[in-house]
């Protein structure tokens, strides 16, 4: 019986590859867009304008305070009421990008705040422009703080992309759900789904850990 199931599973190989491809593509696109947007928002957040900063803060709280599933439903079912028709893929990309941007915004803002004010003042005294200050003085130093949680955030993003299966995108989780209807062995099917995610996520987790260790070493902290 298990042999039959394995054969049937081997038959769903193309579906699994498509699912994995969908998961990787969704995560990759929203990861790139989210990082760009997140850095922009993070810089604006610490830019000194009270109003902009508090608006961004409120938006970030709104996104952090609601489950991602609810956000996806909101985007997918409610944007059409404003006359914007979306297919599931675009809705998924928008939801994931927005989520990533909000979390990355906070990470970047924390990194920028960690740069001592003396550095900014020195840059001001050297006559650097606003843009030069950010690009040549603040960001390079902030990156050391930003990098480890940023990579950790990417892992969370890839995992959150599984939730878009709820609006019918055939990503890896959805493929598992479809296959389990035909091959009634949930343990095996979802173990394989887990292996798929593990292959994508684990290298990133290792990278995050290495970066964290290097950061710790750079700051002279003792590892116990």
């Amino acid at each position: 019986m298990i042999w039959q199931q394995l054969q049937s599973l081997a038959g769903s190989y193309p579906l699994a590859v498509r699912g994995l491809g969908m998961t990787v593509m969704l995560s990759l696109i929203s990861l790139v867009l989210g990082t760009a947007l997140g850095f922009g928002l993070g810089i604006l957040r610490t830019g000194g304008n009270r109003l902009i900063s508090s608006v961004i803060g409120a938006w970030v709280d709104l996104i952090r305070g609601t489950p991602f599933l609810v956000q996806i439903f909101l985007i997918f079912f409610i944007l059409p009421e404003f006359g914007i028709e979306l297919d599931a893929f675009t809705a998924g990309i928008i939801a994931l990008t927005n989520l990533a941007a909000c979390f990355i915004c906070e990470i970047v803002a924390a990194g920028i705040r960690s740069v001592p004010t003396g550095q900014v003042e020195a840059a001001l005294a050297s006559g650097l422009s606003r843009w030069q200050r950010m690009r040549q003085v603040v960001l390079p130093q902030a990156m050391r703080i930003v990098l480890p949680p940023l990579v950790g955030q990417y892992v969370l993003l890839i995992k959150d992309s599984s939730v878009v299966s709820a609006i019918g995108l055939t990503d890896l989780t959805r493929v598992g759900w479809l296959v389990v209807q035909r091959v009634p062995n949930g343990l095996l099917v979802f173990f394989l789904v887990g292996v798929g995610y593990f292959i994508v996520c684990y290298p990133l987790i290792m990278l995050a850990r290495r970066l964290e260790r290097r950061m710790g070493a750079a700051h002279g902290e003792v590892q116990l």
Partner: protein
Amino acid sequence: MAVPARLCCSRLRYSLFAIRYSLLAIRPSLFPRRAPMLENFSFRTIVEYLPLFGQGLITTVWLSALSFAGALAVGIVLAAMNLQRAQLFRIPAKAYIDAVRATPLLAQLYFLYFGLPRLGFVLPELVVGILALSLNSGAYVAEIIRAGILSIPRGQVEAGVASGMTYVQRMRLVILPQAFKVTIPPLLGQAIVLVKDSALLSLISVSELTRAGQLLASDRFMPAEGFITIAAFYLLLYYCLKGLAGLSSRWLGLQPARSST
């Protein structure tokens, strides 16, 4: 192979739900179009469904609380295993934590939901959900506890050794009271994540808050009313927990000052 009757039933229910949704998703024109820009946002319907939302909210709260208790239990055991010197304990704990952290909760949830009946455990969806949340959050809690214990300076341990304390005494009297303080704020952060993650249980038809919103959305074709309302309820929970986290860290921040005077 005979599929357990219960699983069959819930699967049928789920697919009906999915069909209803995919109809709504693919052909919005099948259903009466409403005026754009949410002009006829119906507060009356929300009020009408308020008991359902209230029930969902209560379910979400208590199942999150129960799962968090479970996560603490799992996390403490895993952290204790992970801090041992013997590889026999450390390797399984590490493997478990990595496996949980590298896979999405939804896949873990389905793994238990479709997998447990195979092993002969036919449990209600709610129990499967609480189990999945506990096992998932437990891995993160274990890392928080471990980080808290490792954050205690080495000198404290050495001082304990020098005072002739046994391992248990050192743990109980020196390390844990200090580690406890460090772990409370991140644990509350994890509680926030857990409450949000509990929304996924609606996908295995546990009747919690998100499920209430889905019911309103699919019964009356009013997704805006349903999902905006539950988003508001989740925000309420979020701000409560966030306030608690802020209070606790302020309280804990005051503590060292008090003890040093």
